[in-house]
């Protein structure tokens, strides 16, 4: 009897050991919101999960919060878009290494009346100075996200300190891209957003893209496996497999194939694997 149950237990253990782990491994990706809200993960994850048997759970928050969560070991992979902050995270030992994954660009959307007269400009610094000089409303994320960091660096390069006008024409919503777009559109303000979020955004009303095409508005996404040295509980192997797949030919092709309304949202640019 004892041997019987022992064997039964062994059989169960063996089944668990052979079949299930591939099915049961689950990783958490701390992600920026644009990749989640635009539906990219709904397109990518079923392909990866089918091929690998690894379940991917996505926590979509701003880049700043995603990095902090990853630094607390609450994720296995980090997928965000603020290169300096990402490199700092890797340098501090939180991440294994950072790889370019894909890009798109930022645009400035605004009301069709274009109160700052910046429509059609391809020089983002001139456009921002135009907004500041005309004191036209501008809604900022104000939340330490990747988009917010980028916006601040552009204001800085344009020689404008919008913080002086905070609460006047410069409105910091302190919330996500979608919430900031909803607020900005509601108050007829200009908003800087990544193109993926804008294309897939459902509440554009009459707002249109006013400024685009400056190479300063390049938006690079990077991917980082969380370091098992900093975080012993991390699913390092499964996380690395996900990252390897994303930058592989198959993953890059899947990213490039994703379309919303016929438009490509993300352009794969991972370096050739050695």
């Amino acid at each position, binding site marked *: 009897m004892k041997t019987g149950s022992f064997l039964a237990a062994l059989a169960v253990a063996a089944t668990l050991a052979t079949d299930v782990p591939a099915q049961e491994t689950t990783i*958490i990706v701390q992600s920026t*919101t644009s990749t989640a*809200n635009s539906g990219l993960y709904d397109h990518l994850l079923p392909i990866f999960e089918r091929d690998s048997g690894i379940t991917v*759970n*996505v*926590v*979509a928050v701003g880049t700043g919060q995603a990095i902090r*969560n990853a*630094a*607390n*070991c*609450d994720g296995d992979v980090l997928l965000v878009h603020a290169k300096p902050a990402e490199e700092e995270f890797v340098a501090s030992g939180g991440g294994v290494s950072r790889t370019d994954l894909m890009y798109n660009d930022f645009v400035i959307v605004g009301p069709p009346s274009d109160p700052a007269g910046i429509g059609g400009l391809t020089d983002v610094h001139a456009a921002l100075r135009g907004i500041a000089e005309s004191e036209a409303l501008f809604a900022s994320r104000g939340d330490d996200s990747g988009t917010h960091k980028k916006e601040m660096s552009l204001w800085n390069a344009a020689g404008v300190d919008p913080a002086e006008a905070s609460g006047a024409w410069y409105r910091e919503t302190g919330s*996500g*891209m*979608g*919430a900031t*777009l*909803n607020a900005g559109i509601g108050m007829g303000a200009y908003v800087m957003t990544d193109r993926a979020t804008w294309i*897939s*955004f*459902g*509440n*554009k009303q009459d707002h249109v893209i006013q400024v685009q095409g400056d190479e300063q508005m390049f938006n690079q996404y990077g991917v980082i496996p969380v370091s098992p040295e900093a*975080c012993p*509980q991390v699913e390092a192997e499964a996380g690395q497999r996900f990252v390897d797949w994303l930058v592989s030919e198959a993953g890059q092709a899947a990213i490039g194939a994703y379309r919303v309304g016929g438009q490509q949202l993300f352009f794969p640019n991972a370096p050739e694997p050695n």
Partner: protein
Amino acid sequence: MQDFGDAIGLALNLVLSGDADLFEIVLLSLRVSLTATAIACVLGLPLGAVLAVSRFRGRQAALVLVNALMGLPPVVVGLIVYLHLSRAGPLGFLGLLYTPTAMIIAQSILITPIVAALSRQVIEDLHGEYSEQFRSLALSRRQVVQALIWDARYSLVTVALAGFGRAVAEVGAVMIVGGNIDHLTRVMTTAIALETSKGDLPLALALGLVLMVLALGINAAAQSVRLTAARFAYA
């Protein structure tokens, strides 16, 4: 105003078409918030009863504290629970962050003070009416508490519903500790927040309508149980 018409149509469509994702989200919302309500009642009702019938030094301060805790901001509760359950936190080894259990913990913390504070008031009022009888019967404190909770049971159902209403409607705590992960920790309120951030206002509003109908159903069920019980009691 166009959005409202769209939303009602969309809500009906979602419910009538038996949308599998919607049912999953609704079930998780109910599971998390009803479990949290049960936990809050187990902890909060006796606490409220004891506060109602006891007289001790610092009681007034305790009452003020419990009443004030009814105003706990969900985001703060979420943050505190996050800091404990994070892998870098003291309870990180449990691996509970981003699970429904974490959401139940956060909502229980959020609504236990509500259940305790409201039941304290209900039971204290009742105690005022019965205290002479209790004294003449020379009941122990434990018997008094049990008798009061039983006698106040219909009012206490409303107290539990107040707790449930707060739990099922909050978004700040479950967003932080649950992470709004699709097919794992997404509930009605976080789904509504997500659709709002995608700018899909009709869908967000439709989900809101479904949530309100759900709350209506729970309250109607509680009311009918109460009426049925009352009819038997006085028949």
